[in-house]
């Protein structure tokens, strides 16, 4: 959790969920508010805060982590954050990248999950990132809500998504992969 006194990232502890503003300094609050409006370049319905890409914010730097090692959006995300910081008068705030601990879909906020669903992407089940890749529970169709769904391909249009289809409403849809 981010606090005014101890802004440092603590290994293993996820950030404040839903991008909630806690008892941070006004500058940190302002930066977090800016970042909450920076969309992910590949899934613009959610922000970099919603996705849990932003690991920590202090008055000096924003700490981010990539979702996948080969995610082609990594550079675009950094540039978008840079532009938002510069535009908001925080040109002196640095952006740093960390790989550890590795990003997990458990860090996607509840609000982010709802935004994904509304956008047509079935959100990943929570707490299931470590689950076996076999015998996954069926995804809930983001269009009709049915659980009568099946996996078409475990790899989809981006590294973070799998391709599913709903046998109730016959629509194909993306599912955010557990990671």
């Amino acid at each position, binding site marked *: 959790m981010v606090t005014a006194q101890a802004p440092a990232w603590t290994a293993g502890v996820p950030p404040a969920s839903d991008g909630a503003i806690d008892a941070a300094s006004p500058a940190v609050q302002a930066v977090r508010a800016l970042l909450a409006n920076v969309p992910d370049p590949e899934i613009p319905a959610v922000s970099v805060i919603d996705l849990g890409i932003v690991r920590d914010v202090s008055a000096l730097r924003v700490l981010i982590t990539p979702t996948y090692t080969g995610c082609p959006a990594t550079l675009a995300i950094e540039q978008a954050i840079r532009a938002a910081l510069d535009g908001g008068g925080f040109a002196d705030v640095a952006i740093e990248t960390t*790989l550890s601990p*590795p990003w997990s879909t458990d860090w996607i906020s509840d609000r982010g999950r709802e935004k994904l669903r509304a956008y047509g992407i079935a959100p990943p089940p929570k707490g299931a990132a470590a689950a076996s890749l076999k015998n996954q529970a069926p995804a809930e169709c983001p269009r009709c809500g049915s659980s009568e769904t099946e996996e078409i*391909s475990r790899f989809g249009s981006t590294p973070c998504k799998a391709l599913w289809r709903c046998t109730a409403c016959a629509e194909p849809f993306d599912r955010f992969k557990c990671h």
Partner: protein
Amino acid sequence: MADAPPPLAACALRLGDDALILGQRLSEWCGHAPAIEIDLSLANVALDQIGQAAHFLGLAGEIEGKGRDADKLAFHRDVMDFANCLLVEQPNGDFAQTVARQFLFSHYQELLYAALAESKDARFAAIAAKALKEVKYHATLASDWVVRLGDGAEESRARMIAGLDWMWRFADELFAADEIDAALGLDKAALRSAWDARIDAVLADATLERPAAHRPVLGGRTGRHSEHLGHLLSEMQFLQRAYPGAAW
């Protein structure tokens, strides 16, 4: 051949080169796979591998300390300076041969990254822990296809057997240990029994038998590559060879 890099840089090069060359090979399937789902899968696996390569090669350049970054190492070295294993540079062949290569390699890579994630060198451990999540998907994908092809039609079964038979001779090199790996505290030989168990379990599911033992082919780690790597590099490195230093 350039001067030998420090042992830890050499470790990072091996990891990076394995991922880079496999990523490049897999990307050759893009737009050519037998079905759209397979095209997507192989392109995704290629992307993961190239992402991992960027991290490991970046680390190799950092340890080496001669100002070479991941791009420089990928595009400005010649065949003899590549330290990838021979398995990953093997041509794609038909789809079954590609699946066989991926199957043998991904299970090795998953076990290797799991061990590396516990490394006392935090830089290696961080990349491995992150990449491990990705590689689990690759191992599952490859295993599923070994079963589908092996326990499938007569033709698919024959091709799967032929693919495994071709790739099998390059498996021993994966577990060959030397003093360079020891610099990182890595004991690749110790991964062999877990790998054998995984491979055997999937082959049993696929109603296939282990290929007959081949005389192992070694040499990739020390730059003695098959003729195939040079052709791969000539395509991958074309732009930087024709226009050295060109940038976006």
